[in-house]
């Protein structure tokens, strides 16, 4: 009977923290895997317009084009006119084709035919610039595009 006697002394045993590093490491690896370190510094203001009828973008087959006014620290150098940025440098409409072909070649070869051009354009930009970009894309036969937008609706503000 004495086998089942409760032990005396009400000291709470300390919680074993030996597995704490494991848990933390697990979290660490999760965040390491999902982290995308920004590989292109944006030199432009890039506030996206709002839209709610949106589809998800497939990352592995997309080429990004940014456009907008140069951000403040670059305005002295590049002025305040809207500019196009691909990768980490400014591009002119006339040299857009070259820059896009270059960007496409960085994709995986089997996906190069399914390339989607993601347009990240600041909401203050003029539509004319976007039209110019689209003209160049048609010339290159990269006709699948996606206008990246921020979630939300313009109508909510009114």
């Amino acid at each position, binding site marked *: 009977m004495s086998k089942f006697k409760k032990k005396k002394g009400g000291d709470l045993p300390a919680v074993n923290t030996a597995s704490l590093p494991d848990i933390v490491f697990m979290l660490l690896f999760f*965040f390491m895997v999902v982290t995308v370190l920004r590989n292109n510094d944006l030199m432009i203001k890039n506030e996206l317009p709002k839209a709610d009828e949106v589809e998800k973008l497939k990352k592995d087959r997309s080429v990004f084009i940014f456009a907008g006014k140069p951000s403040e620290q670059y305005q002295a150098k590049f002025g305040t006119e809207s500019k196009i940025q691909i990768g980490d440098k400014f591009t002119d409409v006339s040299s857009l084709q070259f820059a896009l072909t270059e960007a496409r070649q960085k994709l995986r070869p089997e996906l190069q035919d399914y390339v989607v051009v993601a347009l990240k354009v600041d909401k203050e930009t003029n539509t004319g610039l976007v039209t110019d970009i689209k003209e160049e894309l048609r010339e290159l036969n990269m006709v699948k595009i996606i206008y990246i937008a921020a979630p939300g609706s313009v109508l909510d503000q*009114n």
Partner: protein
Amino acid sequence: MARRATPEVNAGSMADIAFLLLIFFLVTTTIEKDKGIARQLPPKQDENIEPPIIKAKNTFIVSVNQNDQLLVEEELMELKDLKEAAIAFLDNGGAPSGSPEYCSYCKGQRLPTSSDNPDKAVISVQNDRLTSYKMYIAVQNELVAAYNELRNREGKRLFGPNFVYTEKKNALNEGKIPESQAEDTEEKLKKIQELFPLKLSEAEPKKRGE
């Protein structure tokens, strides 16, 4: 020499190091969630080919000027009314019953002055070069919303109340539909798309003063 037991490395600070790294990655992580309005641009065209002639009643002209004001079918309109107007136009089904162009599933007013059927109906958007991109996207968004609403309606009518077109399409794009059903779903989506094909045309933007 006396043999010495190798002293155990104190691993107590391991958690601290891991925490430090964890916090670094937590802070730098931006889980990117790029979403947007997908579009297919028209392929490059030969300039000699005459564009097909479309009846005026089958076009729905949306113009946006440099002050971001909306002109729909020659009338000033607020952005919030655009979706309704587009739905009314697309869903009109003006062709008389019995004619080959008759639209049996349309629920519109069947005005003879508006579109014959959704297949014929074309929405044409004309922007000024100085229109803001924000407005451009807002207009596109409203027009896509009009199409989506009609497609959702047809999806529910044809395949039951649980078949919401936009939801199924997103699920398919994200690979959330099991492979056994994927093909079937794709076919159903195609069927709905045929009922209300997306016909959005974009005119060359006018330069100011033209």
